[in-house]
């Protein structure tokens, strides 16, 4: 029986509440040493890719900078280029939004990263969700949701056209004949749409992957359709098995409707991992960590993300707020991706959970945010990861832990070897590009229909 090969990535524990910075083992989230250690660990484990999230404004709550979680992060492109120098095989995935960047620069930077890394670059295209981020950029004004995806589509099309504007043989560099470029039209492009009217010549040669791998993280119908049409992989937040399956089915159906082979698109939920020598020990450890992650104040803040209003007068140990969410109000918490597409439905679901279990506000929030984590012995966690993948609830995971950067160590040392023994995860890199390691087809040139002549990502 053939079994799907699991895709594994690692996210850098950063500015989310699941990072427990007060843990004595927690290092700097800015210092280069943290990134280097994290990357070397991931590569030692044979992971497919390193993943960096993005946030272009500091988080605020009621207009004040949020000071309780990790605040600040380094520039994604810069860190990934530096990591390219100290790793050899692992993919380098950066979340970079399409709303506050221009195609010419995006195409150059990803092509450069792909060249410097020997074909390991990946771009997680996000549109960014909050207006005040625009206050940091020339574009300034905020684009509505529809326009942001229109811009994402046009940006990606433009970037692909730029990547394709240098053929793989464009640089001849023949000292004897004196021909440096094969053709005087190398780099020519002209694109116009609702968002862009740009023309000229692109200035960076074609990179090893041609097109760096495209990831997407977004979950609205527009986001899912954009991913179905464009992405090689999707970073999702759906980890609970039935939700993950539903998301998987929905997106793969959209991929089919977009005229692509569903196997071309990997779906990769994020997942935290807590290990123990016994299941009981792991659960106890998890309970302790989770208590720190969702402390009383954080439970209020997470509820505020759904309710979109100040809930500081509510008791974390009391019942859920007796008021309704106000999604139409100005955003109470800025700089963080929304937790839900439908706050009223989410609030109703939380009330049901609270009523059914007799939970307080904090207990409810802890319950809801508990689903992100694989907890157990290494065998159990490996079983779970494998089960999700073999039952098409995901194609793999982007893993993380609550400690920066050493939390990845035990995942790589204890879980990965079990997956390798089972033959569902690579035991070494074959030396190819990220695209090849993920079993993705070479990119079709811009404007051509993408074919589905991919290599099968299955092992017998």
């Amino acid at each position: 029986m053939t079994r799907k090969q699991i895709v594994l990535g690692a996210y850098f524990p950063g500015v989310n509440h699941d990072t427990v910075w007060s843990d004595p083992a927690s290092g700097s989230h800015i210092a280069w040493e943290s990134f280097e250690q994290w990357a070397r660990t991931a590569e030692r484990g044979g992971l497919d890719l390193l993943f960096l999230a993005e946030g272009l404004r500091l988080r605020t709550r009621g207009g004040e900078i949020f000071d309780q979680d990790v605040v600040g992060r380094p520039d994604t492109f810069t860190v990934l280029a530096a990591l390219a120098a100290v790793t050899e095989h692992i993919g380098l995935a950066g979340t970079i939004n399409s709303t506050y960047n221009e195609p010419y620069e995006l195409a150059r930077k990803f092509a450069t990263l792909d060249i410097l890394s020997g074909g390991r670059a990946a771009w997680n295209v996000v549109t960014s969700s909050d207006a005040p981020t625009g206050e940091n950029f020339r574009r300034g004004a905020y684009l509505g949701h529809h326009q942001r995806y229109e811009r994402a589509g046009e940006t990606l099309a433009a970037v692909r056209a730029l990547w394709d504007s240098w053929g793989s043989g464009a640089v001849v560099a023949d000292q004897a004949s004196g021909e440096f470029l094969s053709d005087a039209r190398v780099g020519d492009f002209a694109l116009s749409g609702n968002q862009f009217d740009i023309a000229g010549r692109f200035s960076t040669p074609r990179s090893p992957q041609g097109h760096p791998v495209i990831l997407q993280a977004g979950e609205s119908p527009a986001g899912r359709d954009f991913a179905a049409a464009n992405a090689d992989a999707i970073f999702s937040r759906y980890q609970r098995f039935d939700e993950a399956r539903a998301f998987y089915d929905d997106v793969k159906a959209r991929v089919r409707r977009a005229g692509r082979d569903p196997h071309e698109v990997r779906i990769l939920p994020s997942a935290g991992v807590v290990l123990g020598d016994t299941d009981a020990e792991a659960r106890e450890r998890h309970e302790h960590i989770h208590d720190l992650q969702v402390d009383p104040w954080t439970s209020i803040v997470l509820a505020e993300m759904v309710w979109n209003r100040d809930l500081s007068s509510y008791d974390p140990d009391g019942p859920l707020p007796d008021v309704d969410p106000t999604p139409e109000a100005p955003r109470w918490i800025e700089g963080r991706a929304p937790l839900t597409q439908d706050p009223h439905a989410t609030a109703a679901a939380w009330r049901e959970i609270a009523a059914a279990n007799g939970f307080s506000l904090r207990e409810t929030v802890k319950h809801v945010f508990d689903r992100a984590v694989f907890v157990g012995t290494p065998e159990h966690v490996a079983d779970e990861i494998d089960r999700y993948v073999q039952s098409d609830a995901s194609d793999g995971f982007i893993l993380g832990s609550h400690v920066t950067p050493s939390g990845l160590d035990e995942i790589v040392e204890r879980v990965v070897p079990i997956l390798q023994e089972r033959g569902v995860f690579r035991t070494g890199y074959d030396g190819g590009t990220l695209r090849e390691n993920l079993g993705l087809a070479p990119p079709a040139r811009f404007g051509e229909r993408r074919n589905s002549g991919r290599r099968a990502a299955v092992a017998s």
Partner: protein
Amino acid sequence: MSAPDTSVPPASPLHLAVAFDGTGWHPAAWREPGTRPGELFTARHWVQLARTAERGLLDLITIEDGLGLQSGDHLAEPERRTDRVQGRLDASLVAAFLAPLTSRIGLVPTVTTTHTEPFHVASALATLDHDSHGRAGWRVQTSVRADEAAHFGRRQIPAVGRSELDTPRGRALVAELFGEAAEVVDTVRRLWDSWEDGAEIRDALTGRFVDRDRLHTVDVEAAHFAVRGPSIVPRPPQGQPLVASLSHGYEPSLLAARVGDVVFTTPHDADDAARVVDQVRTAERAAGRTAPPLRILADLVVVLAGTEAGARDRLARLDARDPLSSDALVVATTPAGLADRLLDWRAAGLDGYRLRPAVLPTDLDAIVDGLVPELQRRGAFRTGYAETGLRERFGLPRPTSRYAPRSGSATVPALLPGLAPVPAPTTTGSPA
């Protein structure tokens, strides 16, 4: 080892930077034996160059860049030629890649101010400074080309040829772009300051990771951009990475005087060097500069060989193939001859030089293995790296965040003078 040459008066050692562009600054460089033009767009090319420069104890490397293909004339669209090096990697990412592979040398990518986002520029350079432990710099550059503006499609820049620079139209464009560059640099510096030192407190007792009172918005509203801040990147190790720009005339000198730490200039002889230094100091006074004086480095394109004749022959051979036209003086000589000139011109008040190797790696190797030992013998160049930080190497203090509270002052002091228009002196030099 020979004793130091006592005929040279003891002076602070020269600063020596090297400027990398493609396979070297000569357009025919890529045809030379010893170059590897096929490897230009590889990591290996850059690592080898940077490691050689670091072996030579040089202050810093600059990496050229632009938002369009190279052109023979900085102001003009590229010609559709297939016989010259065309194409570049993003300089700031090349510098980032080199950071963990080097340990002491300064890394100074060229980053354009005209179409880029100041917020992204500030983040990228602050991160380069974090990743390199305080070795980051920025070679500030404006983009005057109409074709580069069309790559972004959000703003039109009129095509202005070199001969039109001294017309009202040309002067207006230059003033606009350099004025904007000053605003961009000032904004970026504000973003670097927007986290005070020590803002990350990790106070487990109160549960606060940062002290939000030590984070500040910058609230810049300029003609072409607006930035609110604070930065997303904590204050970099140097406080502010080193800011450098190239000047050929008054307007660019003024940019450097307003917002720079180091200025690269292009004198053509010793007298010219004195005139250029004077122009820079005049610009500093006009700009009301309160920061430490600009460090002035003179740019020279260098072609080096074992004998004077050999160097001249090399240059002639290169020029015969594709003549070099250069803003900076082209010097074809021996390492000892070059050392003579560097020490001679220094009397004009230069702090050092940025050498542009005509051919890479050939002329870089000659700098590191010929010129550097020669200068060391004369006691004019360091024999080891003392400092790690780049500002420190230039004797520049680490700036205090302008937002940090100072006793007795409630207002936010500007590190740099305001950006009100500064009258130009009667003689204008040619910019760009």
